[in-house]
């Protein structure tokens, strides 16, 4: 394992400069972030412009935007914050606790979704009062 060997040979020398730290890489990352943001924006506007119903296409577009955002987060943390240049011990002590988010997000989103279904089932007034009316499209076409 190369990381292991690197750990052994490294000395305690805090004011170290990351080996790959150069201006060219910073600007490259900037362009990557900018391009991803523009793609995200394009997809966001597409969702708005198409005025899609809550179907699979909309879900896929939103999923793509989320994945692109995670990619942006990776570039910011790894390159701008230099976490990618730190030794593995440090990377793991930060990244492993963040795994809690996997449970955190799934559990709470599902809870919200389940609450919606229960309310729609047992509280017809809520269902009527909050479901988007079909008149919207016809009205806008006029």
């Amino acid at each position, binding site marked *: 394992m190369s990381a292991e060997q690197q750990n*052994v040979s490294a*000395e*305690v020398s*805090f*004011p*170290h*400069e990351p080996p790959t*730290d*150069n*201006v060219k890489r*910073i600007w490259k990352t*900037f362009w990557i*972030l900018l391009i991803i*943001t523009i793609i*995200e*924006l394009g*997809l*966001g*506007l597409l*969702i*708005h*412009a198409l005025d899609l119903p809550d179907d699979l296409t909309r879900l896929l577009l*939103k999923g793509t*935007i989320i994945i692109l*955002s995670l990619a*942006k*987060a990776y570039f*910011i*943390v790894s*390159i*701008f*914050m*230099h976490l990618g240049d*730190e*030794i593995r*011990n*440090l990377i793991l*002590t*930060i990244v492993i*606790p*963040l795994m*809690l*988010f996997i449970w*955190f*997000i799934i559990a*709470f*989103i599902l809870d*919200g*979704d389940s*609450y*919606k279904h229960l309310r*729609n089932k047992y509280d017809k007034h809520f*269902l009527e009062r*909050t*479901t*988007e*009316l079909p*008149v*919207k499209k016809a*009205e806008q076409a006029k």
Partner: protein
Amino acid sequence: MATTATMHQTKWWSGGKSPFNVEYGKLMMWYFLMSDTFTFGAFLISYGTIRFSQNFWPNPGDVFNTFPFTGEANLPLAFVSLMTFILIMSSVTMVLAVHEGHHGNKKGVVKWLAWTIVGGLAFLSCQAWEWTHMLTGEHPTLINGHIEMIAQTVTHSPWGRHVDQGAILDALKSTSPDVLAKLVYEHNHTMSLAQLTALPHDQLMNMVNISELHIREAGPVAFGGFFFGITGFHGFHVFSGVIVNLIMLIMTNNGVFERRGHYLMIEKAGLYWHFVDLVWVFVFLCFYLI
């Protein structure tokens, strides 16, 4: 120190050296940022939970469609794109300041830190405009069978479901002359608001241009609370980041780090600043894109 390190070369955890190979302050900054990630994460996830529990949620393209100095032009997401660009740009200038710090270049650090502060202030100004616009921009909204002019606040939202023409006609009958006058005044400037308000109710009602009128019901109450709460908490981070950077700028300028022999403090301030940018990636995602 060197001998201790040599003795335990095979193990990072047997003492004598930092198992993370970073100084204490930087490690603690990383742990602070991790805990802050959970704070922001909890806020955003609670927002997600509420959104998933609702049948209707305002479309961000409808809510965020204005740009300073363009009046009523419909420009969905344009302004927030500018804000995002400003923040990414300031992140780049910050990482360049850290880079100059690695080379012990005081002038370079001062220059890029100053630009980072400018970026931070620009972002805060944009947010101030956006908030003011949302809190003061009134929209006609159907509430309890009549139309009211309400703004997006923490307790009220004008971004509910669209109302059809028949319901609008009914609602106009029980709408106050003040609101009717405002609705007429939007498209017709031949009379002043005061003059319009003084007109008989029936005449005023007939002057309302119904085909141009887009009226919504009140939107989900939680929308404003989450929006102002989370963007506000992020804005507070940007603000404190600007203060931290300002202190770093003054210290650099006074030669504190030059005397110390290293610019590690700039790295720590940089970590905080990049974190602010990182959080914005997700705020931007949750409130404006999806």
